[in-house]
């Protein structure tokens, strides 16, 4: 049996900030005055102090018409209707599940917002209420879409589409939500042989590719625990996981292209080596270069 023990010194620590070519935007710190002019609206992350609009969090200023808000560098997930999220069930309550989606408050998944086995138009009776733990229990992972934002900021989710539902075997990676790029689609069947859900909330799900017809049959609640994921799939999943963590470590934006580039650039390393700082940085730098090249074209 092989074994691998690596102990490095702090002096070998490397700087993992990648300097981009784009300009660094102006950052504001809490208490700093953004503008003294009147006529602006107070958005998130700001407050009014004697007619001056002041930042309450550290971050970049965003302006939409008259609305000024400050987006913090590191924040929990701020939900928007239509976002794709990956979440974990934390509690089973009456007619609803509580879901951890990395937002400030736990999100809610109502029993009426899920597809139950046996057709979409089925009525939900008391029987279903008692069976709720059978469908989804504490710890289960789901993919869902944000349907509504309540007054207190908590999210209401729904899974009434065949692409959403309970997640089966795979790996969950957690990154900052601000690193996930908003795209048209967040479900990706990568050519390297794995599927990926880039949740807007910073939860990324990687699993073996499911074929199209199989996917339709899922309906949300089947999970095959007997099936063993083959070694080759496992290697791809582990590599993807380590690449995503490497990119997130260098604070690079995550989308299917950047992840795929990183995956390709990482091929010269063993999956295991991607846990070490140097290969991680190397992969990120190479990915960055390819992204610029693509932009130039």
């Amino acid at each position, binding site marked *: *049996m*092989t*074994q*691998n*023990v*690596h*102990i*490095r*010194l*702090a*002096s*070998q*620590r490397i*700087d993992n900030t990648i300097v981009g070519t784009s300009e660094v935007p102006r950052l504001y710190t809490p208490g700093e005055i953004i503008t003294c002019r009147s006529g602006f609206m107070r958005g998130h992350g700001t407050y009014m102090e004697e007619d001056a609009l002041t930042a309450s969090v550290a971050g970049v200023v965003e302006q939409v018409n008259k609305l000024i808000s400050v987006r913090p560098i590191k924040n929990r997930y701020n939900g928007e209707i239509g976002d794709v999220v990956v979440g*974990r069930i*934390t509690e089973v309550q009456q007619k609803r599940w509580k879901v951890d989606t990395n937002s400030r408050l736990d999100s809610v998944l109502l029993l009426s917002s899920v597809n139950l086995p046996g057709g979409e138009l089925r009525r939900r009776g008391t029987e279903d209420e008692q069976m709720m733990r059978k469908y989804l229990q*504490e*710890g*289960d*992972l789901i993919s869902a879409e944000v349907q509504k934002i309540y007054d207190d900021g908590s999210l209401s989710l729904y899974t009434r589409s065949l692409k959403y539902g309970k*997640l*089966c*075997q*795979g*790996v*969950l990676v957690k990154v900052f939500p601000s690193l996930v790029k908003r795209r048209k689609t967040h479900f990706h069947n990568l050519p390297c042989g794995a599927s990926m859900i880039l949740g807007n909330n910073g939860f990324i799900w990687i699993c073996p590719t499911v074929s199209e017809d199989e996917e339709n049959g899922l309906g949300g609640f089947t*999970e095959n*625990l007997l099936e*063993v*994921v083959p*070694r080759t799939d*496992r*290697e791809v*999943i*582990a*590599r993807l*996981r*380590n690449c995503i963590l490497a990119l997130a470590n260098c604070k690079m934006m995550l989308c299917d292209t950047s992840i795929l580039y990183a995956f390709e650039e990482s091929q010269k390393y*063993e*999956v*295991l080596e*991607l*846990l*070490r*700082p140097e290969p991680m940085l190397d992969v990120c730098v190479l990915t960055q270069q390819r992204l610029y090249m693509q932009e130039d074209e």
Partner: protein
Amino acid sequence: MAEILLSEAEKTFILHGVEEGFRCDGRMRLDYRPMEVETDVVSHASGSARLRLANTDILVGVKTEIDTPYPERPREGKIEFFVDCSANATPAFEGRGGEELGTEISNSLATAYQSSQTFDLTALCILPGQQCWKLYIDILILECGGNLFDAVSLAVKAALHNTRVPKVKGACLDGGTVDLQLSDDPYDCCRLDVSDAPCLVTLCKIGDHCVVDPTAEEETCSSGSVVIAITEKSLVTSVFKTGVGSFHPQTLIDILKVGQTIGLSVNKALRAALLEEEQQGRKKECFGFLK
């Protein structure tokens, strides 16, 4: 430990991965995650070290004080371990939440360092029966990302390696009181011999196999772990079980044998790292928590 929630499917995925010998992050069963060590990070301590293993972050400080030896062991110094599970690590440690885990770790270290073959307490003796050095080893858990026992023991060994005990130039008995003359030069001090200090190796049983250095997710899947303390001379100085679950005697024997070989390579790796750091000399830059 702060348990994390996992779905059955995720557990199955981890379990099958361990069976296959290919874990979720690409490691084999007996691979450690990369670690980072730095000694001499706290200036007011006689010796200190910080060790980071993935998300687990440990800071150890050693303080020396003069004390009277135990009457039954007049020629030996004292050593005391204290583990502080800071609420910085996880809110679950708040108040007395981390106390149980803290006692468990400090007790395990005390047991592992108990034998005179691991750490020579007589080196801490100043005046037999009258005065000795007492080492307060305070362990701070700054971040908790699984595999605490291994990380803590390595950090303790590194901190002890870094510890400098002031040299006593003269000691004389003046009536009932003891007069000690300590050297004025702060660089004039003795090192401690840590070549026989043990490292703890946790072998976490997942399914029918054992893995080392489990992540927090893997710990959740495990039914129990065996922790083995191994010295560089491959002496077993402590064995105990953590978690629920039990082992077949034959499994236990196999685990002990695997643990021994791993313990040796962990000891070797730490020694190499510490030697390398020493060669950088006194002028070495202190990195600490910045950068």
